[in-house]
């Protein structure tokens, strides 16, 4: 298998299937306002996005040449532990199109989480650049990254990370309170089918239910990006599918660009593409022309 390590591009797939809708214009506009806020407010972007530069905003709707949500260039991450260098990422290039659902797979230690954390503004690379639209995440200060996470990113983790002292709805409200254009916490919980458990504390919910609260919390602010690190890792397959359905629905209905790490290759069936990691590099990208709904996957 020959792979061009220098440039990989995942183009935006037109929505397939009758249920898939194009990303909503209003939503993208909202996102651009956010991006402008991130870049302009902090004066970090040398070339702030002009509204007129963007074809979508200008009114035309070319579905294929839309700018990617993320552009990753030459990304390396090296950890120095007791003088021994661990190369978590060794030169990763990747474009992620807006609205896409991407699955990242690869052996343990291959760098998946490292990439996801950098995309989410939790970590900084040793070298290379990451652009979120035209904003260079790699050049942001810690507090800029906080703002970026606050307004644009939704996270879902293997261990849910809910606040034990807040009920389901309060966990969601935690995020909507500080977001600019959130949906109502109840609507967010409805999207993950949890309407009847909203006043329960995390300790009163099953793992799958907790994970769905975490998804509701992640998407309630209508983020542009949803990053999921092994969201089904701690769940049985049945519960895992319920969670995947929720993610799928969010991606579809809100047009949220989604990256999902999993050790379960079968999950790639629901994605637009699967990115394979090996030893800190991308070993291959497989497009998926025949996406399957999450509930048809089994493992």
């Amino acid at each position, binding site marked *: 298998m020959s792979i061009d390590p220098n440039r990989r591009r995942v183009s935006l797939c037109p929505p397939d299937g009758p249920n898939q809708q194009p990303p909503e214009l209003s939503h993208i506009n909202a996102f651009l306002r956010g991006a402008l806020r991130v870049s302009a407010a902090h004066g970090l972007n040398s070339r702030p996005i002009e509204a007129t530069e963007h074809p979508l905003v200008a009114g035309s709707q070319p579905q294929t040449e839309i700018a990617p949500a993320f552009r990753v260039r030459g990304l390396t991450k090296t950890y120095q532990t007791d003088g021994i260098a661990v190369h978590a990422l060794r030169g990763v290039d990747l474009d992620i199109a807006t609205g896409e659902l991407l699955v990242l797979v690869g052996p343990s230690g291959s760098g998946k*989480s490292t990439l996801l*954390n950098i995309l*989410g503004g*939790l*970590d900084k690379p040793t070298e290379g650049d990451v652009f979120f639209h035209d904003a260079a995440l790699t050049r942001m200060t*810690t*507090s800029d990254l*906080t*703002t*970026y*996470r*606050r*307004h644009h*990113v939704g*996270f879902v*983790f*293997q*261990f849910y*990370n*809910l*606040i*034990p*002292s*807040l009920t389901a709805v*309060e*966990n969601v*409200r*935690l*995020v909507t*309170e*500080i977001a600019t254009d959130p949906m109502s916490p109840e609507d967010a919980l409805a999207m993950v089918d949890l309407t009847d458990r909203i*006043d329960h*504390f*995390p*300790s*009163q919910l099953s793992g799958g239910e907790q994970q769905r609260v975490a998804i509701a*919390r992640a998407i309630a602010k209508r983020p542009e990006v949803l990053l999921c*690190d092994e969201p089904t890792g*701690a769940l049985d397959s049945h519960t895992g599918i319920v969670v995947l359905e929720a993610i799928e629905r969010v991606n579809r209905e809100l047009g949220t660009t989604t990256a999902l790490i999993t050790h379960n290759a079968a999950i790639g069936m629901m994605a637009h593409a699967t990115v394979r990691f090996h030893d800190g590099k991308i070993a291959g990208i497989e497009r998926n022309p025949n996406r399957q709904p999450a509930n048809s996957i089994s493992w």
Partner: protein
Amino acid sequence: MTVTISPLDRKLLRDLWHLRGQAIAIALVLAAGVALFVTLLGTMRSLGDTRDAYYERYRFADIFAPVKRAPNQLRVELARIHGVAAVQTRIFSGVTLDVPGLAEPATGQLVSQVDPTTGSLNNIVLRSGRLLAPGADDEVIISNAFADKNDLGPGDSIKAVLNGRRQQLRIVGTALSPEFVYALSPGTIVPDDRRFGILWMNRDALAAAFDLEGAFNAVALKLQRGASEPAVIAAVDRILAPFGGTGAFARQDQTSHFFLTGELDQLAGFSRLIPPIFLAVAAFLLNIVVTRLIATEREQIGLLKAFGYSDIAVATHYAKLVLAITAAGIIVGLAAGTWLGLSMTSYYTRFFQFPFVYFRPQPDLFAFATAIAVAAALLATATTLRRIMRLTPAVAMSPPAPPSYRHSWLDHRSLIAWLGQPSRMILRHITRWPLRAALTTIGLSMPVAVLITSFFFFGAIEAFIDFHFDQTARQDVTMTFFEPSQADVRRTLAHLPGVLAVEGYRAVPAKLTSGTRQKRVAITGYPQGADLSRLLDGALQPITLPAEGLLLTTRLADFLAARPGDTVTVSVMEGRRPTREMPVVGLIESYLGIGAYMDLAALNRLMLEGPVLSGAYLMTDAAEEERLYRALKDSPAVAGVALRRTALESLRDTLAENLLISVTFTTAFATIIAFGVVYNSARIALSEQGRELASLRVLGFTRGEVTYILLGELAILILVALPIGSLIGYGLAAAILHGLNNDLYRIPLVVTPATYGYAWTVVVVASLLSSLIVARRIGQLDLIAVLKTRE
């Protein structure tokens, strides 16, 4: 030789290093407790030992009795009283002094001195110069402090008016005496060594000056071991009565001894009150830190046990950690306590006049302090250690149940509805662990209370001064005459330069008896309409002096259990010594001294005498001060002059020095408590909620918002602790005053807003600083690690 450290001990060292911030904070609180304990008790013992040795070596008398004029032969009769070991008859007198360099007149206490080598009583300790030459009638030895303050010494001389004759006295030496460890002029509560001194003179010279040839006017007795004090006092009174005895009294009523002992009692009181507060707080902190530690090391405990370490071995490991912190606190505390004890003792030796000081190392005190500190530490962690023993490997290695929250009363009220989620987290956290929140609050209220107990004195003393000097004894000058003088002396006094008003008074010593209770006090007669020195009732309003009957100060009334309408027996011990039943017609408030008051004319009638006065109160013109002072220095009839201005000055100076020291130390110690409690609570909150806080940071919460959640709980607890601490402080202040107040003076229980303000400010600032140190760590939270691991 190689030293091998067992793996467990290595873990112990690593744990200690990891917990160093908290360990230091706890050790410091503990050290403060130990140090205070050693300081207070050590100083108390040193002073007590010094006092006892001093009294013993210089033969301080047990019983004292003033008399008007008793023939020398009476000495034999006094010596024959059962239980009396030695008798010293003396001549005592007050005198007005003209000290070089001092504008105002000073007051001297003349004491007849015999050769100290003759096995007499109340022997002086010569500090410089020589003893009096036999037969010399112009030589004096003066008290050391008086000499120091006025820069006088052997070779200098001072002028005095001895019974109407102005005389130059040559100073030949300076001395100390067990009788005047705390030298107070009559009617004052702090020493003014510049304006009051003791003057020892040859007895013959004094006898000649005061018409006491072949007689004495004071006697001191030493008792045999096991003698009955009251019996001897009664016998002395009986013997001296015909000669104008005004009542014998025991050592505990002797002014110097009274104050010295009061100070020791106060130290004892503080040593029972303050160190336990620190030990309790340190114990609480140890408890929460160790409890948290084993919660985080649960799995390690399980592993150790699975590897075959015994329950005891594992528990011992954690006990060692507790003991290591405790030991550090004890060592620092003992060292600091010894140093503080030394400085405090040497401070006291400047305050009290001792010829030497005993400060010996006190191994038993050290052992005791160590024992209670270790006991407090182990007691505080006992349940936690027992829990470690009980933990089975299987249970330990399964993750602990997540903290489960339930809906509580908070949710059913509209109370929480308007709160944002971060504030809800804070409230839920408090209600989830109510006991810990309560103990933390109490821990935080302690420094507030401790600060109030020391700082409130400033306001209370001001209230005392306002009441006594501004409302009651408003006269600028108080004069005491040698002998009761005819009332027309008022006219003479009115003509002195700068005198604006004169009010005479009559004071007689008397015994007041009510049922089985008896008290020796002065009955003072005031003229009707007295306005310089006023009598105030409980509401601090001037009282109209009734024409008949007695007014008692509240404390005296309490002691006698006499209320207005009751009758008391008055036995006057001057002049014709009348005894009468008299009605109590009212109560008055007094912060300085206890006593009884009545109409001047009625008192003169009671005494079967004409209109005579014992002294006078003057209101003077400050501009004429110098001239008035010169006149007073020459006035033959005056035994003592007390000035309002200088009394106030010396009171303020003494208190300022004392209070400044005590406030500085309490502030330092209270800061340690506040710092220790806040720092540990915040560190534990960070350890418990670190995962939540990191998750919030991942969700895009700013450092400020996350800091609010971390410290909000503490902020609430501090806000609650401030009023609670204020209440406790008020209670402690009341308890301290209850122990402190006595027949000579009473400090009113006044805690000013400034006191609360100061205590609150210190605690809030200390809390802010320590919490900011912890808050810095929020920036260091590892956002990624928290995502990788299960709680």
